[in-house]
């Protein structure tokens, strides 16, 4: 049992132990789950060194049998692609626990238990190397989020929760069929083994098979991303979820989709991915612009941030389907950036809501005078989100645009429109919320940050700056693994020719 296995066990054990805690002692529950999540975070930092020294290969691999027939294995491992996503998840969990400290006052025990269960599910998805195991974790991550939205959300929470669940279920149903089909074809669920068989020519998918299998996986992932026009569950789920739910949903759960695209769709179905890239990029760019335009007219802050996610995630998909090293690096980096900056935006919006009990932009104004620090944090995060140089999103967007330009300059032009629009809707919201006249409700209720809120925001701001100016701490590991994936995407035949020369 290595560090990664322990990291998986901790949230699962934490979940079960939390259920055993007494119901009438919420303080104990909060402290306990915070403690568990911090342990998970500290342990996950121990993963960085070994993976970074060998990012193109699987580190911390465990491969033991779970079910004998059909052969399903507990096969997990970590490489440069999954490393930062794992750390993003463990980093955000203690933060969202702190965010919910005051906000969640009823059914406290269940709430925190579900947060730990969610961490277990998403960590599992990021490290699973067996397709079946991947699917199991994929579905597990769905259940706690459904409860988080449905129990602790806003007025339309039930509608949003059910919609979220059913959308994902519909996608994963097809994915399961595709996984079984691949198993019948190859005799294994093991991804590295499957790739190896493909490289050696022992597993070949003909054009039709490749197309439908790719589509089945792609559909499941595109719903989760969400790619335009499958995004309609997202504004509801984000808008109705409690702050912690919105943060985990935006920062981590959406990444499951883009991660799946990079981890599964590209290497396994390289040929089909290439053939379908044009319309997928078309949808991604449509999403970038559409998300930004719709965000602009939202009167509700949470829905605005939610639509901005549609736009940002369009960048990720665009980067992935350029199949260029820079594009892919940018896409993966953008996944992390979006996790930090959109997570921070949701947290800040949540803080405003806790004070004023409204998400309508029209109910605010002049917050800058009554809560200067809160406003400062909000503005920094906004600038990060719109891609100001020296802050994190700039790096990702730049790389993605560069990759897109390599493929077709027009892609980059249209995507860049999205960048411009993003500063329009974000800065306009900031202006209406934080500047201008201060209504009396705002003056009386919106006070400045508490110590707990400082503790929540500072790490996020630090990360925004660090990822903006020190991308070299993060990118090499990602690049190494992306290079491997692009290598795998080359046709085996083409490679044989290259080897023969």
């Amino acid at each position, binding site marked *: 049992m290595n560090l990664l296995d322990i990291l998986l066990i901790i949230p699962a054990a934490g979940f079960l132990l939390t259920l055993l805690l007494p119901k009438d002692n919420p303080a104990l529950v909060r402290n306990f789950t915070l403690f568990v999540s911090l342990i998970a975070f500290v342990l996950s930092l121990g993963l960085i060194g070994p993976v970074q020294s060998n990012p193109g290969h699987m580190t911390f691999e465990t491969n033991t049998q779970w*079910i*004998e*027939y*059909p052969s399903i294995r507990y096969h997990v491992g970590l490489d440069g692609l999954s490393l930062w996503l794992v750390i993003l998840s463990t980093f955000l969990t203690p933060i969202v626990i702190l965010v919910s400290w005051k906000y969640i006052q009823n*059914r406290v025990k*269940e709430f925190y238990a579900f947060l730990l269960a969610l961490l277990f599910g998403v960590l599992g998805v990021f490290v699973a190397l067996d397709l079946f195991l991947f*699917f*199991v*974790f994929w*579905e*597990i991550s*769905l*259940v706690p989020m*459904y*409860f988080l939205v*449905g*129990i602790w959300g806003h007025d339309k*929470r*039930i509608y949003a*929760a*059910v919609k979220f*669940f*059913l959308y994902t*279920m*519909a996608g994963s*149903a*097809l994915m*399961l*069929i595709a996984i*079984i*089909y691949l*198993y*019948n074809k190859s005799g294994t669920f093991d991804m590295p083994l499957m790739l190896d068989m493909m490289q050696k020519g022992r597993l070949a998918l003909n054009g039709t098979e490749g197309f439908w299998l790719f589509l089945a996986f792609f559909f499941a992932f595109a719903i989760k991303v969400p790619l335009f026009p499958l995004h309609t569950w997202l504004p509801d789920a984000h808008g109705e979820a409690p702050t912690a739910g919105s943060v985990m949903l935006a920062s981590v759960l959406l990444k499951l989709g883009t991660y799946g695209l990079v981890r599964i769709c590209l290497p396994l179905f390289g040929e089909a991915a290439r053939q379908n890239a044009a319309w997928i990029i078309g949808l991604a760019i449509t999403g970038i612009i559409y998300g930004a335009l719709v965000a602009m007219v939202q009167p509700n802050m949470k829905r605005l941030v939610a639509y901005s996610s549609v736009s940002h995630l369009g960048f990720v998909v665009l980067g992935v389907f350029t199949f260029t090293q820079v594009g892919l690096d940018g896409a993966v980096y953008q996944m992390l950036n979006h996790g930090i900056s959109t997570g921070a935006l949701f947290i800040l919006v949540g803080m405003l809501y806790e004070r004023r009990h409204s998400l309508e932009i029209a109910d605010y104004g002049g917050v800058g005078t009554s809560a200067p620090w809160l406003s400062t944090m909000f503005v920094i995060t906004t600038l990060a989100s719109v891609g100001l140089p020296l802050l994190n999103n700039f790096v990702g967007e730049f790389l993605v645009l560069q990759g897109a330009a390599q493929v077709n300059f027009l892609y980059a032009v249209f995507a860049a429109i999205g960048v411009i629009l993003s500063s329009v809707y974000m800065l306009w919201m900031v202006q209406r919320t934080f500047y201008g006249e201060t209504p009396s409700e705002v003056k009386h209720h919106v006070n400045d940050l508490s110590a707990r809120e400082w503790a929540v925001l500072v790490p996020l701001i630090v990360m925004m700056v660090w990822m903006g100016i020190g991308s070299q701490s993060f990118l090499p590991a990602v690049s190494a693994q992306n290079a491997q994936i692009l290598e795998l995407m080359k046709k085996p035949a083409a490679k044989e020719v290259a080897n023969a020369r």
Partner: protein
Amino acid sequence: MPVNFMPTPQELFRFAPEMLLTLVATIIMVLEPLSGADGKRKFAVISFLSLAAAIALSVAAAGDPGAAFSSMIVVDGFSTFFRILVMVAGVLTILISTNYLRMEEHESGEYYALVLFSIVGQCIMVSANELIMLFIGLECSSIASYVLAGFLRDDKRNNESALKYFLLGSFATAFLLYGVAWIYGTTGYTNLSEIRRVLLDPNSNQNMVVISAATALMFVGFAFKVSAAPFQMWAPDVYQGAPAPVTAFMSVGPKAAAFAMFLRVLMTAFEPVKDRWEPLLWTSALATMVIGNFAALRQTNIKRLLAYSSIAHAGYIMVALTAHSDIGTAAAMFYLASYTFMNIGAFAVVTYIARKGERHVEIQDLAGLSQRRPVVAAMLTIFLLSLTGIPLTAGFFGKFYIFKAALDANMVWLAVLGMLNSAVAAYYYLRLIVVMYMQAPSDEMEELPAPSVGIQAAMFAAAAATVFLGVFPSVVLDYAGKSASFIR
């Protein structure tokens, strides 16, 4: 040809579980009038213990597999699996029944005797190797179930349920018997292995129209018993009207047994003519899934919703049958085992929620259950997630194996449509969870007393089995895989 009708001790041993249960049930019938009004609980204990003993005997009999009574019945891995399954279903049913019957002031020995008789019938169904024997088992199981469905004889809905079940059930068994007669008329045999031999024989010169018609007639009977489309109409009314513990029993025991005989007949006797029944099954499987799932979407009564859900699940199992392979058979066996636990578990909770006179069986009666009875709500959530097919529950692996079998048999479209159906199903199972967890209990709600020991035991056992099969499916699946190939 002179036949020695005296069974050997070995044959008697193979049939011992059925004999024991018949004996105990008869004794209960005799003792029933002799016991006072407050002495009925002992019958529950007696039948519980006799079922435990019968399970032990079945396990022992499995050590010496083979045919008995001139090949009328056969004890193999397959029949042992289903014998134990229906008996376990019986044990769980008794656990959830005792308190219910006392509450409804109908506690009597007859109830337990009928449950035992029904189980005897199901045991014969699953081990019959002969069409007449199969019919006897089916009737034995059905007649006991008809009576059970109307057990609270002063209750209007019970009477309706029993009458509907009886009339439509007899009609369907008549079709089955008619099919048996045709088969006997054309092949000259009722023994499954002999029929298979005749159908495989290229020189036997069978009239394929007659064989097909006979298969279709028998299909009517089987499809009725497993509530597969287009013969599923009875299920919602009967399930809704019958007493909740009886519904729990009917939705698993007789259904599992009916699927077992369906499987055995298809996979042995009629396997040679599979091209003829495969399209029939394909269509019926799809129709069953679609009707069950889409009708369940609009139900407000929990029992009725679970009735449609059980139709949908019959559809999934029909997919496994359509695959007509050993993998398909094993998948159906595994599914029936998981289904037994999750469905009885769900009905145990319904029995508990319903209270006296079953006044609380609307979905809204579950409102705020997570706050009123958190443990019960958590259990029902496990059963519902399993029925939905979420990983780490038995239902997920059940679906997985079934759709894997379908893909193995190159039925990609059936698998895709089936999986999409299970996504639809998520909606109505989620609705129950929504009400339990996301709606506050209303103030008028009566107090909900703690569940009885029997219901608690049944719930915990079923939940433990559901989760266990969801994490370690191999335990059951390996056995199913080994016993999926019939003695032909």
